[in-house]
């Protein structure tokens, strides 16, 4: 066995050109497959992260019936315990309140969805405060400031610094109205958000709606690798009366879309992998045909078919391992570069919004260990399988024909 391995290695090592071409083909396919995986993972991961970290959060807590009725009076009775528990879990909680009413500026008016937020919590845990088209995010102290969605600002024809009148039905049944100064306008997020959002400081919201501290939602954000199910269980223990849901449960269609995208990429990768295997098979076949005379000599002087088969397979194994490892090594800096710099796809895409979710215009890869283990292993196995046919062909050679005709 040692001799067989040594001889196979000698053949691999000394036939430098052949080894370079075959291993190069395998390495190229490995690199492309790893990049494909890293980019598809990057697309899904960054899209989800973009979606959750903007405003939605990875988990949300509502009063048990709130999401069915969106009733102003169905609020979270005691938000503090769940907020503290979330902070202990490393999550950033952001309490929010919602309400509906009218906004007007100059001679224009529109319906608006009022969102009361704690600017400090939003700034600490979410990206939306930085997603500005003009002006700046509302101040951490309540100063009668409002942020508008981009389409609402366009419809009202307002700029940062302009005045905005808000008219709502307050919690006590009275008409609530206030004058706000527009501090900023959000960059586009999604159609519904852009068309209706009026974001206020929680204190200003409370004054406008006479909400008396009502909190309708607490959104929790955290690192991308947060164990959401564990966090959810921990929060439920603290506040069993609340409905606590992960973003996948809240946005089922979006979660399905992410899963489907991963599946599509996997199917694409399998097709690409098969194409690569056929390429490798072709290269190995060509390499075997080149050596038919040599195999004929080996058989003529007493090499058995089994030994020839095993030797050819071992050479295939060495070359496929070499190609896969080299491919993995080459892919690593490329993935790091794509993760860091990414590909700007904004020029090829008209809209960066899908289902109201704003996607990052720069497509970045996501570096994980998985494709670096999986792809080279799969490529090595595929290459080895591709080596079976040439090895069988070689083992069944007629030595005199092989020496005479090649």
């Amino acid at each position, binding site marked *: 066995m040692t001799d067989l391995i040594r001889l196979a290695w*000698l053949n691999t090592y000394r*036939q430098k050109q052949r080894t370079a071409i075959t291993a190069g083909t395998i390495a190229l396919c490995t690199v492309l497959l790893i990049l494909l995986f890293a980019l598809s993972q990057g697309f899904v991961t960054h899209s989800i992260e973009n979606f959750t970290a903007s405003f939605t959060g990875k988990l949300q807590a509502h009063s048990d019936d709130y999401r069915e009725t969106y009733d102003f009076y169905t609020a979270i009775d005691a938000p503090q315990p769940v907020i503290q528990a979330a902070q202990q879990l490393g999550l950033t909680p952001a309490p929010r309140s919602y309400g509906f009413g009218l906004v007007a500026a100059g001679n224009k008016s529109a319906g608006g969805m009022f969102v009361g937020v704690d600017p400090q919590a939003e700034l600490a845990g979410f990206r939306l405060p930085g997603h500005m088209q003009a002006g700046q995010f509302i101040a951490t102290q309540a100063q009668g400031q409002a942020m508008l969605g981009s389409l609402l600002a366009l419809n009202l024809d307002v700029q940062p610094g302009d005045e905005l009148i808000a008219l709502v039905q307050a919690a006590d049944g009275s008409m609530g109205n206030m004058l706000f100064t527009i501090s900023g306008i959000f960059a586009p997020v999604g159609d519904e958000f852009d068309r209706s959002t009026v974001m206020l400081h929680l204190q200003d919201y409370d004054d406008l709606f006479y909400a008396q501290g009502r909190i309708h939602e607490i959104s929790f954000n955290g690192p991308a690798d947060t164990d959401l199910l564990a966090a959810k269980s921990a929060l439920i223990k603290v506040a069993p009366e609340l409905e606590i849901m992960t973003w996948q449960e809240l946005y089922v269609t979006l979660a399905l879309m992410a899963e489907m995208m991963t599946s599509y990429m996997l199917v694409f990768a399998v097709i690409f992998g098969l194409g690569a295997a056929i390429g490798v098979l072709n290269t190995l076949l060509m390499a075997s045909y080149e050596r038919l005379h*040599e195999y004929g000599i*080996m058989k003529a*002087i007493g*090499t058995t078919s089994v*030994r020839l088969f095993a030797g050819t397979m071992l050479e295939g194994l060495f070359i496929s391992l070499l190609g896969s490892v080299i491919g993995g090594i080459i892919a690593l800096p490329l993935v790091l570069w794509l993760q860091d710099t990414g590909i700007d796809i904004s020029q090829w895409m008209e809209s960066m919004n899908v289902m109201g979710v704003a996607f990052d215009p720069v497509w970045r890869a996501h570096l994980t260990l998985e494709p670096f283990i999986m792809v080279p292993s799969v490529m090595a196995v595929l290459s080895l399988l591709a080596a079976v046919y040439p090895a069988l062909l070689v083992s069944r050679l007629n030595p*005199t024909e092989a020496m005479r005709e090649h």
Partner: protein
Amino acid sequence: MSSPVIQLHQVTKSYQLGELEVPALHGIDLNINAGEFVAMAGPSGSGKTTLLNIIGALDDASSGKVLVNNEDISLFSAGKKSQLRRMQIGYIFQHYNLIPVLTALENTEYVLMLQGRAKQERHDIAMQLLAQVGLQGKEHHLPSQLSGGQQQRVAIARAIAPEPKLILADEPTANVDSHTAEGLLDLMEQLNKDKGCTFLFSTHDTAVMRRSHRLIWLKDGAVDYDGEPLGFALP
């Protein structure tokens, strides 16, 4: 009297070329005894290489019996034929047919490795044989770094390394100059004397025929002359 190494009884061989059957050998009867140094000659297409391939278990006869060391090799399985080639027959080919990625030493060791000999043992044998064929200092050269004569010497070393009872050589001097051919024949004759190997080689070269102890002349796939080389008048 020495025992026969090769016994052929009514051996025929035909090739199928499309629908046409082309006969190559017509009922050959032949005995070659141990220790003989036999040349097989004849015009191109007379069946020399075909006969060598059949004796060497590289090809099958269409009919007749082929006995090597008293065993009918036409009954052998592929594995047993492979074993026969590995253990009992040494080959020297016209075009040297060395394994191109192996050095002179590794080529010589190759059959010994197939026989399962220990690394040191086969290394020692190969080094000694390469020195014997005049290739001291060239042991680590690849075939591409050796001249035709040197490659053929490696092929001879490879053929005799497992100490086979029978060495088959297909025009071993065809691709070397006359001086080198003389040297190769000296070497083969020496091995025949010293080790008692039976040599059967095909040739076109009259000088080589005259150096043999027995000449078999083939014509149109049949034995036309079998006897002393000096008694044969070349056509």
